[in-house]
């Protein structure tokens, strides 16, 4: 059985230096915005913005650009491929959002007892729930695909 998750260091070479700057600036700006909103409207409103999808906007756009660039080098438009890659990233973000929900619930539960415990526990909850959700989704998709293939005379092409 192959390892479903792997490292691809070559992906770093596809990135341009200004793309990393954009992410740094967006991340910094989102954190400043959250602080400014908390200072102006209170911690309750500011807390909403802790789950602001600012970073995802940049990531999805960059992933689409990378896929289009790669396809254009092969003489293809790459637009559809770029959209599919960004959509796959969005699907992952949905699962990550479930993990973020777990992060917030665990942080809220533990912060009254221990500050360090709240940060460690919430981070662990995020990674465990996100990864577990990803594996459940992946196995569910395999199961559904194999059931579909059993019902077909002609095997379906794997498009994911």
């Amino acid at each position: 059985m192959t390892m479903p998750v792997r490292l691809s260091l070559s992906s770093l070479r596809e990135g341009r230096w200004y793309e990393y700057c954009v992410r740094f600036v967006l991340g910094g700006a989102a954190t400043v915005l959250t602080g400014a909103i908390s200072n102006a409207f209170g911690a309750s409103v500011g807390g909403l913005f802790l789950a602001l999808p600012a970073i995802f906007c940049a990531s999805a756009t960059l992933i689409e650009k990378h896929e289009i660039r790669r396809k254009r080098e092969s003489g293809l438009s790459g637009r559809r491929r770029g959209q599919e890659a960004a959509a796959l990233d969005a699907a992952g973000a949905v699962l990550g959002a479930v993990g973020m929900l777990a992060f917030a619930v665990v942080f809220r539960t533990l912060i009254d007892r221990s500050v360090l415990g709240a940060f460690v526990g919430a981070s662990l909850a995020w990674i465990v729930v996100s990864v577990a959700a990803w594996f459940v989704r992946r196995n569910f998709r395999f199961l559904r695909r194999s059931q579909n293939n059993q019902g077909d005379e002609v095997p379906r092409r794997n498009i994911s």
Partner: protein
Amino acid sequence: MNEYVIRFLVGGAVVSAFAVLGDILRPKSFAGLFGAAPSVALATLAIAVVQHGAVYAATQSSTMIVGAVALVFYGVIVCHLLMRARLRALPATALGTAAWILAAFGLWAVGGWHA
């Protein structure tokens, strides 16, 4: 002013670290988990604890639960806009962000967190 400079640097560094991690991981759907990593939350809550104390951070984390529920809506909407409406990533994520704001403030108002 100094507070905002620290926020900018800490937020930028934490977000960049998660983004690079997302870049080097495959498959893409798994890497997407890191697009929704609590990077801004980690930086903001750490600064909140140091500046205002644990009670302030507890209030922020209560309403972060609402924001995270809205983030699930956001991901589903962006996925559909890309695959069904065939929008490009930038307009899809911009519309998704508008939907996130509506969902987050709607749930916040309905849930009574504003009281």
